[in-house]
């Protein structure tokens, strides 16, 4: 539990962070909340020679609506989301997910940007961002670029961020009438990574017809996954329990879980199905309430 030795650099601006990153190249890692990186370093699975602390860069910690977009700064912590009035009022799915991450002390440090940038299919935000159809804004030495969330997750701990990129902002289409989202996960005990997690973001009209739908899954696939087939099955149709059941069934079929200590592949498919059904219902309830 003692990491290998490393040099610590604190960046106070993005520019400064890029300068360090360019200087140390492959041997360097950005540090945000540190709650994914530091455990790996303590186990010596990861031994970066240089740590570039970006956690104190000003101006990357906010939750705000602007031009019909919800913008979340990368350094926003889980606790910030959990206790945000804006999230409570209009984006309860973000409160759902933050509450389910680790424990209070983890949530005080862990950042939303880090949760995505870490590229771990067991993390909870990726599925939520898939459901919310987020846009990820990255900045590197050569400027900023947008990455649609569907192109963001590439492999085990691998994302579309380029080598020196810093994820600076997450953009989510602002909620409107008829929109409701929910996240839930099944875990072995509180603070555990999901055995399966389901994020649903749903927009219905007054006749309960699905106008828009996003469904993302946590930890039942090598990379965070969108359940496109289920989304297609729902979109444009009037919501019924049969239809929701069908979407759940598809989620169970299309995911690709691996047997591990949490359970067998069949178990994970089965609970993914059930959790999808329940989470769609929860999102629907919220969507109706917003009409």
């Amino acid at each position: 539990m003692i990491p290998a030795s490393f040099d610590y650099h604190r960046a106070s601006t993005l520019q400064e962070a890029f300068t360090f990153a360019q200087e140390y190249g492959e041997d360097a890692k950005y540090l945000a909340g540190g709650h994914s990186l530091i455990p790996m370093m303590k186990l010596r699975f990861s031994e970066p020679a240089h740590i570039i602390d970006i956690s104190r860069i000003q101006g990357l910690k906010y939750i705000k609506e602007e031009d019909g977009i919800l913008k979340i700064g990368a350094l926003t912590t889980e606790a910030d989301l959990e206790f945000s009035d804006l999230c409570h009022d209009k984006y309860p799915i973000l409160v759902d997910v933050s509450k389910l991450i680790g424990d209070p002390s983890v949530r005080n440090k862990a950042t939303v940007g880090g949760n995505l940038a870490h590229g771990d299919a067991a993390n909870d935000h990726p599925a939520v961002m898939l459901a919310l159809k987020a846009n990820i804004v990255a900045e590197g030495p050569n400027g900023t670029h947008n990455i649609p969330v569907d192109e963001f997750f590439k492999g085990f701990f691998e994302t579309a961020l380029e080598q020196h990129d810093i994820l600076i902002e997450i953009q989510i289409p602002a909620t409107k009438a008829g929109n409701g989202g929910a996240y839930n996960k099944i875990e072995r005990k509180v603070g555990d990574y999901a055995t399966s997690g389901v994020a649903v973001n749903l927009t219905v009209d007054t006749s309960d017809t699905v106008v828009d739908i996003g469904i993302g899954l946590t930890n039942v696939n090598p990379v965070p996954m969108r359940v496109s087939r289920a989304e297609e099955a729902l979109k444009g149709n009037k919501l019924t329990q049969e239809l929701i059941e069908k979407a759940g069934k598809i989620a169970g079929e299309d995911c690709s879980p691996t047997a591990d200590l949490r359970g067998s592949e069949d178990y994970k498919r089965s609970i993914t199905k059930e959790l999808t059904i329940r989470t769609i219902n929860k999102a629907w309830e919220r969507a109706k309430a917003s009409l």
Partner: protein
Amino acid sequence: MKVSIDKNFEIAQPVSKVWEYLLDPYKVAECVPGVKLTEKISETEYKGDVGLKLGPVNASFNGVITYAKVDEVAREIHLVGKGVDKKGKGSVEMALEMKLQESGNVTMVNTTMNVTVIGVMAQFGSRLISDVSDHIFKQFVENFQTLLAGKEIDDQDKQIHGGAVAGTVVKSITSKLTSGVKNIFSKKDKKEENENE
């Protein structure tokens, strides 16, 4: 921890050529992500370096590749790659059994890969080991096909990388691969012994 993966795939090349390539340890090594041969110990044994990089995770091993069985008549080959972590954290063994069959102009390859992981990686990485093994295997097959086709393997493909994972995301139950993790749960409950197969 043990993971076994059974896979059958086709290569659009004659058996004799596939066989010849498989007998060349340097060609085989080139196709396995992260492997580099450094020394020939005997006709059937080679030393090498194995590097594994998964995002922030790094591991390096001292490896030995052994041709445990070469049966020209049956076109069957058993390759065992053993890697011992350079920092004493454990070891990985990958036993690859391949059987070739000619069918027209293509070669059918029946493969079983048994991966055994011992030490710290098995303790902490259990949730990743079968996915990563599956992935390494897939990348090996792709690289091998590239090489047989007379093309250069991309530098990127010599490391484990994301492309192939993202590309194989939907493993729906209809097209379910015959891969499975050997049961690691209750040793007593015989009923569940094979449930994950």
